[in-house]
């Protein structure tokens, strides 16, 4: 369910990027707004990329193995599936403990994203966890549970609920991608 991308510092090396090879960049531009619903979308993609179907599938598998593609899937719009409430829970935890605590929150099934972000003047929270539910009560319960898990390790916390989605689109890298990307209008991050 979750992808963990916090490699230990000693083993760290820059992961392969999508914007450094023309082929990967072209793949992003062609597919970021979704594949056409054809019987063989990979054959369509192969033709667009000027590759064989086999090489195209190999490229997709390699990028996925390297982590540059998270998944290749039917991507649901959770808002339309009834998950209309989302809360961005934010926590102030000791920097020394954040790896352990981030992994702990990230392992909860109701957390979709869990990130460390910098503190700023007037903004003390360094750990973010997004929770989703079908009611306000449900996400309040999730927040309570995260609070319980952190216990004394957390010195301040808040939950920012969304009152309106003003814009939501997929990843867009270039003007070509911007044209391709569809605005879905109502979805939950």
């Amino acid at each position, binding site marked *: 369910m979750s992808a963990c991308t916090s490699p230990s510092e000693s083993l760290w090396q820059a992961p392969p990027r999508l914007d450094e090879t023309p082929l990967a960049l072209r793949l992003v531009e062609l597919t970021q707004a979704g594949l056409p619903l054809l019987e063989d979308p990979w054959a369509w993609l192969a033709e667009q990329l000027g590759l064989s179907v086999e090489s195209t599938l190999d490229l997709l598998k390699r990028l996925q193995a390297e982590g540059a593609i998270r998944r290749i899937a039917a991507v649901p719009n959770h808002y339309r599936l009834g998950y209309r409430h989302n809360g*961005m829970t934010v926590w102030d935890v000791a920097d020394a403990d954040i790896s352990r605590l981030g992994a702990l929150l990230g392992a909860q099934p109701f957390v979709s994203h869990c990130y460390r972000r910098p503190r700023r003047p007037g903004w003390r929270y360094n750990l973010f966890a997004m929770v989703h539910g079908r009611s306000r009560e449900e996400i309040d319960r999730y927040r309570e549970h995260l609070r319980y898990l952190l216990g004394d390790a957390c010195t301040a916390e808040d939950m920012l609920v969304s009152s309106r989605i003003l814009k939501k689109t997929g990843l867009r890298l270039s003007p070509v991608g911007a044209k391709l990307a569809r605005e879905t209008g109502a979805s939950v991050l």
Partner: protein
Amino acid sequence: MTPNSLARRLIDRFQHGLPLCAEPYQAMAQALGCCEAQVLDCLQHLQVAGTLSRVGPVFEHTRAGASTLAALAVPEDRLHQVAARVSQYPEVNHNYAREHRYNLWFVLTGPNRAHLDNILQELEHDTGLMPLDLPMLTAYRIDLGFALETTP
């Protein structure tokens, strides 16, 4: 089998991954016990209805260009106007109103960090509001889908 139950099983089973083989919808049809045309019909219907946002790769945005989560504390009477100003950038792909002093939250993506800095400066100049700039430092979890069948 009703179309709705097919749709639900299709999403539950394939939101994490499609078969990476020639004619993937044929393979999905076999797994779901229906025919390829029904799978394509169902996908089309779900996309038109907005239940599926797309079928295809989900890219790791940290591997392409630069991105950050930004927020503005906007006086309530200016929220609509400032939100529209923010949303007009093609670099903004999420823009949410949230209940907090920082009441406008958006994700900025661009080819590099300098590009984002320019937009943040432009926004600060145009709105007179100082954006909070919170780039991701470490990911402990990235959404790979929900378990629909087991969620109450």
